[in-house]
């Protein structure tokens, strides 16, 4: 559980980070933010970046700002900062992200880039139609959350692009996220998030990416899931969890 060797670089600005990524392109560079996902993968040598570009020294990528009908969250904002910010469903959902130490280091941008299929941020982004703003050598672009996630650890992000911020619609609708795992702080076996205004549900843990369904009907959603029996978790159980969690999320979101 020791990483393979790599070179460490510290970026001082957004442009500087992109520059480093471009410069080092042949040496398999990787951004490191909170390190809560990447370092574990490096220790198991499942990830072997040749270069790490540390972006935590960039000072204008942290923070939460309401900008008209948009809520902008800097990519380096930690889960814990959001948890304490009183931002409705976003803050409430943070209680499900790992444990306190993880939430104090892990970042919103890191979660989105890492794209775990049950990550709360990925589910929330899809549920609320967030937009991912990224910066690359050719300038910046915005990607709709619905088009961002391609599979576990696989996104629309190019290797030389940096996630700068996540933009949510503002004000937030009545919404809630809830989940089940045997142990507190674990990635969910199944998670459900609902938006009561637009009557839609996002499920985590039932496919390779967050699954968006235009319904709040727990029975209907559970019945329609395309899930298979897996060792230790049958399709029947997963459907049952989905049914329960959609119901509970609706109850939590209801005023």
């Amino acid at each position, binding site marked *: 559980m*020791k990483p*393979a060797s790599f070179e460490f670089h510290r970026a001082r600005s957004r442009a500087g980070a992109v520059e480093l990524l471009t410069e080092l392109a042949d040496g398999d560079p990787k951004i490191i933010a909170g390190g809560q996902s990447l370092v574990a993968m490096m220790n*198991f*040598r499942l990830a072997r970046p040749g270069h790490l570009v540390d972006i935590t020294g960039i000072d204008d990528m942290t923070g939460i700002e309401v900008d008209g009908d948009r809520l902008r969250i800097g990519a380096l904002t930690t889960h814990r900062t959001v948890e304490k910010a009183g931002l409705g469903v976003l803050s409430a959902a943070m209680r499900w992200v790992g444990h306190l130490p993880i939430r104090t280091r892990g970042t919103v941008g890191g979660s989105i880039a890492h794209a775990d299929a049950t990550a709360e941020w990925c589910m929330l982004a899809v549920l609320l139609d967030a937009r991912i703003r990224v910066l690359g050598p050719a300038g910046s672009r915005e990607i709709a959350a619905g088009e961002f996630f391609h599979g576990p650890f696989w996104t629309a992000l190019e290797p030389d692009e940096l996630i700068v911020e996540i933009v949510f619609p503002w004000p937030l609708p009545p919404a809630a996220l809830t989940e089940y795992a045997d142990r507190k702080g674990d*990635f969910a076996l199944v998670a459900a998030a609902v938006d009561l205004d637009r009557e839609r549900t996002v499920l985590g843990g039932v496919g390779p990416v967050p699954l968006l369904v235009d319904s709040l009907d727990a029975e209907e959603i559970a019945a329609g899931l395309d899930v298979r029996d897996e060792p*230790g*978790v049958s399709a029947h*159980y997963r459907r*049952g969890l989905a049914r329960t969690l959609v*119901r509970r999320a609706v109850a939590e979101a209801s005023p």
Partner: protein
Amino acid sequence: MTREPHLHRDGTWVGASVPRREDPRLLTGRGRFVDDIRLPGMLHAAFVRSTEAHARIASVDLSAVREVPGVVAAFSAADLGLHDIVALLDRPLHEFVPTAMPVLAKDKVRFVGEPIAIVVARDPYAAEDGREAAVVEYEPLPPITSDSAALAEGAALVHEEAPRNTLVDVSLFATEGIDEVFAAAHTVVEVRARTGRQNALPLETRGAVAEWDDRDEQLRVHTCTQVPHQVRTVLAASAGLDEKEVRVIVPDMGGGFGLKCVVGREEIATAAAALRLRKPVKWIEDRSEALTASFLAREQRYTVRAAFDADGRIQALDADVVCDMGAYSCYPFTAGIEPLMASAEMPGVYKVPAYRVRGRAVTTNKAPTAPYRGVSRPQYVMVMERVMEKAARALGIDPVELRRRNVITEFPYRGVNDVTYDPGSYKESLDLCEQVLRDEGWFDRRGSDPAIGIGFACFSERTGYGSGAFAQRKMAVVPGFDVSEIRMDLDGTVSVTTGTLSHGQSHETTMAQIVADRLGIPYDKVKIVQGDTDRVLYGWGSFASRSITIGGSAAAASAEKLGERLRVIAAHLMDVDVESTELDGAGGVRAGDRRLSFTEIAEVAYLRSHLLPKDVEPGLSATASFDVGGDGTFSNATHAAVVRLDPGTGGVEILRYVCVEDCGVAINPKVVEGQARGGIAQGIAGALFEEVRYDDAGQPLAASFMEYKVPTAAEIPDVRIEHLETPCAFTANGAKGAGEGGTIGAPAAVLNAVNDALRHTGVELDDTPIPREAIFRALERAAEPALEAR
């Protein structure tokens, strides 16, 4: 303001919850663990490990390893030529098949993670780079990944010398007429249970720092073991050294739980590499290795029948126990550790008149096993407590009442399993535990909420296994006694050795309390010396809740001998009879109104020895040993868990946990409670969370804490602990063992509580860890008629 430690109300140190002597250094980061030891020029080791569960090794090529920058050396089994580790029982071949565990795999690998070669490098990173460069060619053999596969006709053999992959097969007791008892019984209940494979999971993983010291002509090995002398013996034999040429030193330890009371291969290989290179070498096991390649435990299968009369009295017990011991037999306990424990002790606290058991250890292509806190008792107690619950249901008797009718109440009690139980509080603990739950209102809450269940576990635990008890198990190497040396220095302070070894249990505090009382000095004037084969005469280390019962008694005996000696010298100096003197409880010897302080006596013993009586040697020291001749002493407890099930998810929440324990006289009640709480957490882990699974190819599926679900503080409830005290008649201070009980009761209490909460469903669950899906399905099915009715 500093707080002075308080004596017990009777003016003794024993019985007082004085602060732990270990805490200041441990809580401020000033402890010294193996990984804190850094020697000049120290190198770092990593192991090339098998990627196959079962295969012949065609070749091991380390040439590329040696080319990796930073790598200093790499050794395979052939390079080091070490002797195998072999653990033996004194049993005939049809009961026990001896097998060898090579330090590094030779011609065959038997589990994924088995060490094949050691890589030594300038830093741990380079060592891991080196390990990646090794080329091992395998000729795969069929992997044996379950006890049933191991026992199947024509199964591949994990060890060629062990037919049907069976290492231990004993049939014991077989009370005459037992079949007739079953045939005529009013009620027969049956339990089939399987318990999951677990890792004892000490927070500190295994590790060693070894160096050859030319001045001492010694191989010095710092390692976190519970059994330093046994490591010395195996290491010396394996490396061809004299025992005097090996010194094993144990620094602070972050837990062991049994996993470290066997001799590991990696520490031997690390020491051998240091010997070969004449340079210090460090190996620190990482968590992934700890989960997949250290020692595991607890994977057992029970098929048990029990006969009851109409009043709910148990009449006979018939058990078959199969333990999946993995790839190797551990030293010194052997693969017999689990099946022999289960077979010998299963009747437990109940008056079982007829008993028959078959206990087997099978070998499979999984990481090997070692004792783990409680050793089989968490499993067989769980099964016995399921038996009691099932009988209660079948007969319509309250489960606590049914237990009350069956527990042993008259002592000493000679069990059907040829064991004599010394006095305990089996019934009293049941009564008190039930009363606590009643007073707290849990039975009422259960009455109004069908999702709430209450489960009990009543058990005793043999502690203080002396050489007699281990000899009865037919171990070839028979642990048991402890020997203690004590020395008083010029200023009247005392150093005392113990052959036991604290790896978290506060012996520096509790042993000091025992010795302080014997001599009448403050407990902080007593230094405990442990965990160093050069400083401790001999020792069996700490396991099986033996430390306070046996080690504490030896320390007490040496202190008493020293006290005698102080009196003899004082009597001579005061010119009175020895009989007229006594220790005055304040650091002196008194005779009538005359008194000599220990410092005054010590001054004579060391600095003016010409004043000593003729037949008294200079200095102030004594040696004493202690062993338990009979069947040991039985601690006991009743545990109760209250759970609530979540019908929507199958989730289990523990609402309340109560433990009524009796470990005789508690030397330090706070320490006892700490042991109980930690043990209960581990028991809950086994009931609800932890399991090391393997796939069909023998690949371990739990290589990190993502998959191995050790519970956190969030999953462990607050525990209420009540104490009862039935003193032991033959240990110092009447203490019984307190190290393992928590772990033993918890799986049964939790499993029974879950089943109680499923009472409306007709479903019973007997396997652990309890699958949430099974709970979900049971509750879902039970709710269906209600849905239809709507």
